[in-house]
């Protein structure tokens, strides 16, 4: 084999969405040598798809808001499965992180007195989401991207990491990657590695995720020895487009509901009033009149049920459709046309207007949209220390969607962008601290490097074998059908058996063509991650015999208080890579200190 391109850095950050950029900015700010490595071009990461806003208790619209209320909303939204310390740090620090974005050039929409405007979203007691129309993610990624560029951070674009390398003590030493444009391999040596690779949604058929959402970070972390938690907790966003088929799954922002949009079934009924769970009854409106008063003044009525947390709304839509009260293409109606002026809609929801007009031929200022649940986000992820984002592998950190714990069993809208900047920064700080403590630059184990390169090249060397597109398609059908929004024992057990078959077939993938920009080969190298994370999700879905947030079991329709006290933790045991054995064990949740517990107890008085 010819000489392989190699770079030594203090810190490499894998993934260049909000969390990765924020981590890199922090580490670079410490004067370290930092590289960002990303699968796509810089600025194209899934963060750009975030629409509604970034949640931060700044109190600009409702002065009553503060971090404790945000903390409470986040924990309740996650059905108390969240790591309390992550939820606390997130609620306390997100206002500063949002202000910081503004100091780096972000231009949020304004209140009348010139401060950052905040909008309502599901599960948040007060209007809390700083936003720019319905393109907040774009604003966030562009601001961070421009900041990173101005700091001269090295960026390796269209560069796919296939494996992390480790030393004899199990510490991370770097990564093996290939350049997508040329197919040539490149290795990185680093004292600290930050994973910020986003989610796993591409393993489902109807998803809001792009091709990149293949769970690479989850998988390479597990293969390097890290533990994952709560992988069964997958969020199905209630409102994805359902028609035309080609756009099925594309996101429709929750901002539509935050700004007054309502859900109706085929009878024209606002059905969400029928689905208010006991946990949320005290704070949810009982009538349309009461709900409608709330939009203008949150003290004049209680919240509309359309703004319950996402898991609640998604399940309700699913039930309406199954009961035969759906829209013509198998969704329900999301109506803002009859509730707000055309001018208001175009101003506050410009990309939704554009998206429906051009892709579905629907004018949302005149007609209702057809929407239904779409796979959107994974709450589970790599187990991390809340304060440092450190994983169980020394030198390896994880922030953003790839990390688990922050959102419990269900994430509130708007809490993702804030998660990225709060924990991206914390991961950057901890990664930099380790660099300063570590005396020597790690050396890569060349036998590992050679093995990982051979593994990645294998699909190109086989004369014949499985088509990677067919395998991906079968995986997506399987996860959609058997490990979707509503699950049961029989189907998830069947899914695990079929996943084993798919893994065998994936060991025999063959692709034609060369190494340079070959999407077939690129997909073949994504499949191992997809199969690993799908197995983790299916295992968790099997073992968590209850319904809680993003895990809904029709055979166990209620939350089980005992299971509410545990995380399901997964680790690789025997074997290597995507064919290895994965062990799953329930482990107790960290105990919330009394002073935080009091926030919930006060309420119950």
């Amino acid at each position, binding site marked *: 084999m010819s000489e392989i391109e190699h770079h030594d850095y203090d810190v490499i950050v894998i993934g260049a969405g909000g969390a990765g950029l924020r981590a890199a900015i922090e580490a670079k700010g*410490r004067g370290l040598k930092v590289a960002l490595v990303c699968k796509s071009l810089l600025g194209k990461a899934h963060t*750009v*798809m975030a629409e509604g806003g970034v949640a931060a208790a700044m109190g600009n619209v409702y002065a009553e808001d503060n971090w404790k209320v945000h903390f409470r909303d986040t924990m309740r939204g996650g059905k108390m499965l969240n790591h309390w310390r992550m939820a606390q740090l997130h609620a306390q620090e997100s206002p500063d992180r949002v202000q910081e974005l503004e100091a780096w050039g972000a*231009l949020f929409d304004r209140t009348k007195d010139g401060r950052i405007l905040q909008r309502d979203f599901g599960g948040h007691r007060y209007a809390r989401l700083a936003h720019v129309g319905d393109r907040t993610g774009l604003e966030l990624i562009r601001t961070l991207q421009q900041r990173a560029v101005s700091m001269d951070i090295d960026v390796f674009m269209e560069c796919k990491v296939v494996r992390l390398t480790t030393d004899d003590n199990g510490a991370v030493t770097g990564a093996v990657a290939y350049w997508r444009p040329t197919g040539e391999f490149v290795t990185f040596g680093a004292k600290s590695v930050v994973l910020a690779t986003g989610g796993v949604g591409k393993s489902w058929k109807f998803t809001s995720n792009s091709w990149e959402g293949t769970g690479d970070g989850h998988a390479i972390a597990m293969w390097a020895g890290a533990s994952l938690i709560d992988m069964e907790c997958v969020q199905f966003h209630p409102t994805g487009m359902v028609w035309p088929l080609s*756009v099925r799954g594309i996101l429709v922002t929750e901002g539509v509901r935050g700004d007054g949009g309502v859900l109706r079934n085929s009878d024209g009924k606002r059905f969400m009033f029928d689905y208010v769970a006991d946990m949320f009854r005290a704070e949810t409106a009982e009538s349309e009149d009461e709900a409608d008063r709330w939009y203008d003044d949150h003290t004049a009525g209680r919240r509309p049920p359309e703004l319950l947390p996402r898991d609640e709304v998604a399940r309700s839509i699913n039930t309406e459709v199954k009961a035969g009260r759906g829209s013509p293409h198998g969704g329900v109606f999301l109506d803002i046309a009859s509730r707000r002026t055309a001018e208001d809609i175009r101003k506050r929801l410009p990309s939704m207007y554009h*998206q429906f007009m051009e892709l579905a031929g629907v004018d949302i200022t005149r007609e209702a949209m057809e929407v239904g649940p779409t796979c959107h986000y994974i709450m589970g992820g790599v187990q991390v220390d809340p304060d440092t984002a450190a994983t169980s592998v020394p030198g390896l950190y994880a922030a953003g969607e790839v990390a688990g714990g922050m959102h419990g069993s269900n994430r509130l809208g708007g809490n993702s962008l804030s998660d990225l900047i709060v924990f991206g920064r914390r991961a950057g700080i901890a990664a930099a601290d380790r660099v300063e403590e570590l005396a020597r630059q790690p050396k890569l184990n060349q036998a590992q490097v050679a093995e990982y390169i051979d593994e990645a090249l294998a699909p190109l060397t086989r004369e014949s074998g499985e088509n990677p597109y067919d395998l991906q398609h079968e995986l997506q059908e399987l996860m959609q059908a058997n490990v979707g929004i509503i699950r049961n024992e029989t189907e998830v057990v069947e899914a695990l058996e079929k996943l084993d078959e798919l893994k065998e077939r994936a060991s025999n993938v063959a692709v034609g063509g060369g190494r340079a920009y070959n*999407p077939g080969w690129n997909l073949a190298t994504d499949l191992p991650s997809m199969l690993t994370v799908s197995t983790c999700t299916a295992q968790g879905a099997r073992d968590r015999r209850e319904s809680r947030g993003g895990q809904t079991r029709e055979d166990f329709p209620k939350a089980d208080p005992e299971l509410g006290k545990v995380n399901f933790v997964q680790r690789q045991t025997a074997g290597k890579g995507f064919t290895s054995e994965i062990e799953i064990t329930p482990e107790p949740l960290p105990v919330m200190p009394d002073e935080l517990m009091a926030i919930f107890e006060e309420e119950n008085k």
Partner: protein
Amino acid sequence: MSDVVMHVWRGDADGGQFEEYSVPKQDGEVVLDVIHRIQATEAPDLACRWNCKAGKCGSCSAEINGKPRLMCMTRIDTLPEGETITVTPMRAFPIIRDLVTDVSFNYEQARKVPAFNPPPRPEGGYRMSQADVERSQEFRQCIECFMCQDVCHVIRDHEENKSRYAGPRFFIRYAELEMHPLDTNDRRDLVREEMGLGMCNITKCCTEVCPEHIKITDNAIIPLKERVVDADYDPIAWLGRKIRRRTKRTAAEAKVQPD
């Protein structure tokens, strides 16, 4: 499902040719759906970029029937029925493979932009009115699809101009910073002298292809040209600049230094 016939350019930096594919299409599909079907069936190694498939990331830019378009936002049923659809890579950038071009020119331009530089944050945060942020917000809608760069005739057929011309995408970036209520850097001389603003003769091709409908020429380039001229020839503006706190800083000087 009826069939659609596509002529897709296949090749690399050394050359290439059109390949014809006839594949089924479904109602409501966009060009990118058909490209994906070709990949999944006939040509697994057909190279194209894409991410969001919703017109928000600007990855899947190509030329469809000769016009720069986002493949994810071009519905098949808006193209002439029954006619072959031609898909080629963006012409202004070097080919990597098939529909994928080397857009690093744009990332190099981004590195030349002197950083945003606000005054220290006052207690309680910055205050800006909605009316004041809206001008720059329009330009911050840019999804960096680079189609305005592709269509701009200053560089489309004149490789030699790339070394002294930033292009429409970066003119809106300079305009955004120039109009940003908080920024204190003055980039007007830079834009005129090194970024080639004068070479743009406002034919509005960029505005026409912008998928975000940003009024690139009217709202960014023309006002920027006016400000640059003012800065250069208006003695009162010149004096004002000398007195005010705005300081001219080059990209290197304006780099963010580690704390």
